[in-house]
């Protein structure tokens, strides 16, 4: 392998604490090298070391070779000539990677003027060519636009244009599509691949998502705790994983919780009275006035949505960001009043119910949010956090029973009674999500609305939390409304699914049927765009066999 870029025995310490140990890899021209690992595995740190952008207090040893010259030993001034010129970088979050007060043209031209000694006019000429290169010219995105005027996917295209402006030899893409919707992700990945092949760049692709890496990378290294545990050509590596960690990671990525067999999941439950019944629900937001005399039409976030959830039924709601799924969840929880239609929980409307009825309604429907860091008041102990919904049962249970219920809920999710005295920051992301589930369980609800409950978690933790959801459902006959953008998660845990687009439910049915035989064009698009590990590996296998044979 003719690697023009190589990392040899890279160690990084931060304040004496080892972060990376003995990381070695090599990238050839026109090759995409995948670096996979969970959060904290050191994959981003490897990229930052290559750019010499390590955080304060970090110390790197080993060698990072770019065409034989050691990047680690060059001066900061020489490094400045390298960054952007020889090594380009695409960041995860396109909004924060762009300067909001400069036009995109100015930002793309910055590197050209600096490195290529171009005049303003020459640079702007090249900026136009670059915008065309990343597919923005077709969308009539001109260099005079500002970042906030673009969509997330368009912004990421601008970031890519900045990264490739000076035709670097190496492109580092750190989770380039993690912040994007699946349909946009597919486009951006295709763009990166096409550019790398056409310009004969090397690409270091960093991702937590095995499917993305399998689809994109020619060779892969799997990282854990700052070390590379296994590397190889993609299909060959995944076919013969030897390290226990890689095997566990692979298993967690394909994880489907065991389905409990029981009456709750048989078609017989369709005869039961629904817990939640939604009819023609509309939720619209007013827009700022277009002019003094003309009111703007409101944005309709949820448009005439109807569905039922029966006891023990697990329903998925999939859709991309902005499709109205979270707004729908907030309306169902009674947090936002709908503008039209009806919601009925156990025969009661949560918005008009008052007093004791209202409390019965709220007790039946609880919630688990996405962000395991933002869902708890940082100043409250876990005991108090989990006990919060018991406010709905005030007067019915005394302090001793409340305490027992909290302890029982914590045990239920795999934590202990002793955890009641701790504060939220003492727990990891996965444990916090368990606490959030315990809080939802404590009123013994009939339905839990889970809004992207595993999106912020690493794959191995995600698998555990999905198991917990499945287990709780089997034990308590809980019904779920599982909101997610991740089709594989929804497929793993739901019986029925609804696909939402532009505020409407465009398709619904049994989960397997909808994902295997989508009928609506949007569902087809969504299913086609979602990276599938098995399929990606099969395709990769064919490429590798063709290459060697």
């Amino acid at each position, binding site marked *: 392998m003719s690697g023009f870029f190589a990392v040899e025995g890279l160690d990084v310490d931060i304040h004496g604490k080892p972060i990376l140990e003995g990381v070695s890899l090599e990238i050839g021209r026109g090759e995409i090298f995948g670096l996979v690992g969970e959060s904290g595995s050191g994959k981003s740190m490897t990229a930052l070391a290559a750019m010499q952008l390590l955080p304060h207090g970090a110390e790197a040893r080993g060698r990072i070779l770019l065409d034989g010259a050691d990047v680690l030993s060059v001066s900061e001034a020489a490094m400045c000539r390298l960054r952007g010129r020889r090594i380009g970088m695409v960041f995860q979050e396109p909004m924060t990677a762009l300067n909001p007060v400069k036009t995109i043209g100015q930002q793309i031209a910055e590197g050209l003027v600096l490195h290529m000694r171009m005049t303003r006019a020459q640079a702007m000429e090249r900026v136009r060519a670059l915008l065309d290169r990343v597919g923005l010219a077709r969308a009539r995105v001109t260099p005079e636009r500002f970042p906030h005027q673009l969509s997330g996917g368009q912004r990421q295209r601008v970031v890519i244009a900045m990264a490739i402006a000076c035709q670097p030899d190496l492109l580092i893409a750190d989770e380039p599509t993690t912040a994007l919707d699946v349909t946009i992700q597919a486009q951006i990945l295709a763009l990166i691949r096409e550019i790398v092949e056409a310009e004969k760049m090397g690409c270091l692709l960093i991702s937590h998502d095995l499917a993305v890496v399998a689809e994109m990378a020619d060779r892969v290294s799997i990282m854990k705790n700052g070390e590379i545990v296994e590397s190889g050509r993609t299909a060959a590596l995944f076919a013969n994983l030897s390290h226990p960690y890689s095997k566990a990671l692979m298993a967690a990525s394909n994880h489907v919780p065991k389905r409990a067999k029981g009456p709750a999941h048989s078609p017989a439950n369709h005869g039961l009275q629904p817990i939640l019944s939604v009819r023609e629900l509309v939720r619209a937001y007013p827009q700022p006035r277009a002019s003094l005399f003309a009111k703007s039409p409101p944005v309709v976030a949820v448009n005439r949505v109807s569905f039922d959830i029966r006891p023990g039924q697990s329903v998925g709601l999939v859709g991309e960001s902005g499709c109205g799924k979270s707004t729908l969840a907030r309306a169902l929880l009674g947090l936002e009043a709908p503008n039209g239609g009806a919601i009925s929980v156990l025969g009661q409307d949560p918005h008009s119910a008052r007093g004791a009825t209202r409390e019965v309604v709220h007790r039946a429907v609880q919630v688990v949010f*996405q962000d395991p860091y933002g869902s708890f008041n940082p100043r409250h102990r876990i005991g108090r956090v989990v006990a919060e919904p018991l406010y709905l049962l005030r007067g019915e249970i005394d302090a001793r029973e409340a305490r027992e219920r909290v302890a029982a809920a914590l045990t239920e999710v795999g934590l202990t009674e002793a955890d009641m005295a701790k504060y939220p920051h003492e727990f990891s992301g996965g444990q916090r999500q368990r606490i959030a589930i315990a809080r939802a369980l404590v009123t013994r609800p009939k339905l839990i609305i889970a809004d992207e409950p595993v999106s912020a978690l690493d794959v191995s933790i995600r698998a555990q939390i999905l198991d917990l959801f499945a287990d709780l459902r089997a034990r308590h006959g809980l019904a779920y409304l599982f909101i997610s953008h991740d089709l594989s998660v929804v497929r793993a845990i739901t019986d029925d699914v609804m696909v939402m687009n532009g505020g409407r439910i465009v398709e619904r049915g049994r989960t397997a049927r909808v994902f295997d035989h989508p009928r609506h064009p949007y569902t087809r698009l969504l299913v086609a765009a979602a990276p599938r590990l098995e399929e990606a590996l099969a395709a990769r296998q064919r490429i590798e066999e063709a290459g060697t044979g």
Partner: protein
Amino acid sequence: MASRGALRVAAQHKTLVAGAAIVAVVLAAALISLVWTPYPIDVLSVADRLKGPSPAHLLGTDQFGRDMVSMLMVGARTSIAVALLAVGIGILVGVPLGLLAAARGGWLDETLMRANDLVFAFPALLSAVMITAIMGPGAINAILAIGIFNIPVFARVARGGALSLKSREFVLAARVAGKGEVRIIAEHVLPNIANLLIVQGTIQFSLGILAEAGLSYVGLGAQPPLASWGRMLNEAQTMMALAPSLALYPGLAIVVTVLGLNLMGDGLRDLLDPRLKRRTV
């Protein structure tokens, strides 16, 4: 373990410690003056007038023969009492207004915040002079005049803090738990904006001391026989040529106290701001 943590905090935040030490000394002087001063300050003794520093009068006496140390101690009490009560008015009125604006939004928010802007548009000290001139000079009126201008400051801080918390998931979770607005504010919002309010309170406290000194200097603050630093400056003015130290001591007292409070405010901000905290961890 808590005290060891406190020591480590002290070592990391030197400005906080320095500021708190100055404030503690001034506060102690003010509190002691409630029960004891070296000499009574309402007894004039022409025989002892304009004495230099001596073991009997550590900082000497003024033109009426009053002990300067006693005067400064009582002056500290006046300044602190006026500034503290003015901050109290600001918090007690401003914070509920800010929280109300944040919780309700819409036209109420708009009205309250524009009213805030209106108060901000007045030059605070000049307006305080006007208010005390109309209502008559005195410590109580000075408190009211300074306090009114603290209201919008705290309303803004409370509103901003509450708005950023309003959409946080733990607040939504509390609403799903059926808790009402008042309960959520008490349990989730106030404890999480307390740090902002404490920092702002320290800053307003130092501004209050300056304002009180200004008002008493022009004769609209605390009235004799109550001592006040601003008033001492005013009285020393006529004796500038004869006894410059009479102006020096109260002037220094004001400068050092305000400096101490500002240092403490900066230190508290570093200590309590979660963004800065995350950086040091």
